[in-house]
């Protein structure tokens, strides 16, 4: 009894929005063949800032694998205004595009950030914007600028101003964190001495559903990222796990062992309207809603080994989706619903795979051995996943074409269970 009491008293659980200690680092392990050479000149700053906007913008662009950020230190003329630009300097350095800008202090303790994207060859402006921000929004503004540049130069929407979530295990503590897509500015959303797994973003990016073991068994919670308040979504007899939001945010697919074995259920976001979707005597888990809302993809071992299946959200028979290999798990769909990413075990290695749903063609994207939890960026160009390096969990990102890989690693922690958040308005 004493032991039990002692154990209970050790359980300390907090809901906080603290600034995490360490930032995630970037490491690029590959690169695309064609990269746009771009020079980002350090912004003129009338106030001292810890974060260099130019450095954040350059790193964002570099991480996409589509840009080569040129070294600008040592260039004598460092322009901040259009009139100061000597295009011949940048043409000599073979920059295709140039970014200049400045940060100015406003009277009301706000900052004015302005930038221009210039075409070096045509010597003409491509884009330019001004932002009126609070000082705490500086990093996110740098990401937004990187998004504008990315979209202007590639014709595709960028994801630098989105966020990711993941779990950090540090000693005996588990922390649910939310960070910028580059791993910076990590904030702890929930801290617990019991495991937390399977965080899932609401489609509007304002809430997370996740599984916490704080009640000594897996229970599904939904927590607001705006207010920090949380509520139990599912605490039925047995295990409650694997939450995934419907695309319209009105429902979630969850997994319960309520009847016996792990089966998929649908439940309204307010906790009402529970009903069983899958009916098998096997393990059915890891539900993933298709972007059109019509299908739930899931992992099942009904055929003898874990494979990915899908079934209509209205019920009915399941269709098998993966065929090669003896272990295919953790399905996640691209935002256009055309690609499936998952984890495949092959020759004892667990790697990130991608399947084109129309053809069934599979490509292995990662080169590591203990990969888990792949999820697509909102533009479908990159996949975030967890891997293990020297016994420590780290996050990696691979481009959907498999050409660029990078690592986000937090010093001192074991990072796992990542999920890429949606675009925010």
């Amino acid at each position, binding site marked *: *009894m*004493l*032991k*039990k009491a002692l*154990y*209970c008293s050790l*359980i300390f*659980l*907090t*809901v*906080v*929005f*603290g*600034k995490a200690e360490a930032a995630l680092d970037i490491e690029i392990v590959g690169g695309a063949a064609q990269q746009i050479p771009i020079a980002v000149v350090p912004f003129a700053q009338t*106030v*001292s*800032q*810890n974060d260099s906007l130019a450095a954040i913008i350059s790193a964002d662009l570099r991480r996409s694998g589509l840009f080569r950020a040129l070294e600008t230190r040592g260039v004598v003329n460092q322009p901040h205004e259009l009139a100061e630009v000597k295009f011949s300097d940048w043409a000599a350095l073979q920059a295709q595009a140039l970014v200049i800008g400045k940060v100015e202090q406003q009277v009301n*303790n706000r900052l004015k950030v302005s930038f221009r994207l210039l075409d070096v060859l045509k010597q003409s402006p491509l884009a330019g914007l001004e932002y009126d921000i609070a*000082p*705490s929004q*500086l990093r996110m503004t740098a990401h937004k600028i990187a998004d504008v540049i990315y979209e202007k130069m590639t014709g595709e929407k960028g994801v630098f101003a989105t966020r990711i979530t993941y779990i950090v295990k540090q000693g005996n503590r588990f922390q649910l964190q939310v960070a910028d897509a580059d791993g910076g500015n990590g904030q702890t959303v929930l801290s617990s001495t019991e*495991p937390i*797994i*399977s965080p899932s973003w609401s489609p509007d990016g304002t809430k997370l559903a996740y599984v916490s*073991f*704080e*009640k*000594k*068994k*897996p229970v599904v919670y939904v927590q607001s990222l705006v207010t920090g*308040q949380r509520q139990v979504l599912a605490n039925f007899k*047995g*295990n409650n*796990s*694997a939450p995934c939001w419907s695309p319209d945010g009105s429902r979630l697919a969850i*997994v319960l*062992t309520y009847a016996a*074995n*792990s089966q998929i259920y649908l439940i309204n976001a307010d906790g009402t309207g529970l009903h069983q979707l899958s009916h098998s005597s096997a*393990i059915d*888990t*890891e539900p993933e809603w298709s972007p059109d809302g019509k299908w739930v993809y899931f*992992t099942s*071992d009904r055929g003898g*080994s*874990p494979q990915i299946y899908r079934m209509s959200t209205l019920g009915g028979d399941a269709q098998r989706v993966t065929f090669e290999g003896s*272990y295919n*798990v*953790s399905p996640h769909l691209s935002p256009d619903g055309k690609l499936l990413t998952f*984890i495949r*075990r092959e020759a004892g290695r*667990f790697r990130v795979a991608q399947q084109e749903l129309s053809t069934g063609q599979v490509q292995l994207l990662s080169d590591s051995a*203990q990969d*888990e*939890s792949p999820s697509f960026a909102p533009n479908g160009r990159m996949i975030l996943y967890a891997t*293990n390096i020297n*016994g420590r969990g780290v996050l990696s990102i691979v481009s959907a074409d498999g050409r660029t890989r990078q690592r986000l690693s937090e010093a001192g922690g074991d990072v*796992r*269970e990542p999920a890429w958040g949606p675009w925010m308005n």
Partner: protein
Amino acid sequence: MNKNLMMSVLLVSVLAACSSKPVKEEPAAPVVDKSSSSQAAAPAAAPKEAAPTAAPTTTSTVAVNPLTDPNNILSKRNVFFDFDKDEVKAEYRPLVEAHAKYLVANPNAKLAVQGNADDRGSREYNLALGQRRAAAVKKVMNVYGASDKQIETVSYGEEKPRCTEQAESCWSQNRRADIVYAGE
């Protein structure tokens, strides 16, 4: 204004806002975690009656708790499994049978079967696998007459590893179901 100071002020005010409505946690802890020390546990609420048939006879007047007596099979609490399997292997049947018989002899006794998995592959799949391992042990106990009401199953998936090295010698220890009696 200094940005760090600004951040600190913001942070303090946010924390202050949070602290006014702390999350109230239910003290629910039906099962005590024994993943690291299940064998060494000393059950404070152990039954006082004489040991059942499986316990060795003793001439001493001091009651020996069969559940913790290292000479009694009931002190053995771990059932190990093969990769991605939930079969209770023949070598563990006597152990599971002994616990089932104990439950039959002690209708007030209750236990939890905690299923676990090694850390390779999907956490959610492993959670389901741990559940199925726990359920498999329970089914065998049912065969030997133990009542459903006396057995709770729970899964910790790969979240409570006994061993954390990346080697089969370690993984095999984590593919496990633990038997833990209420009150232990």
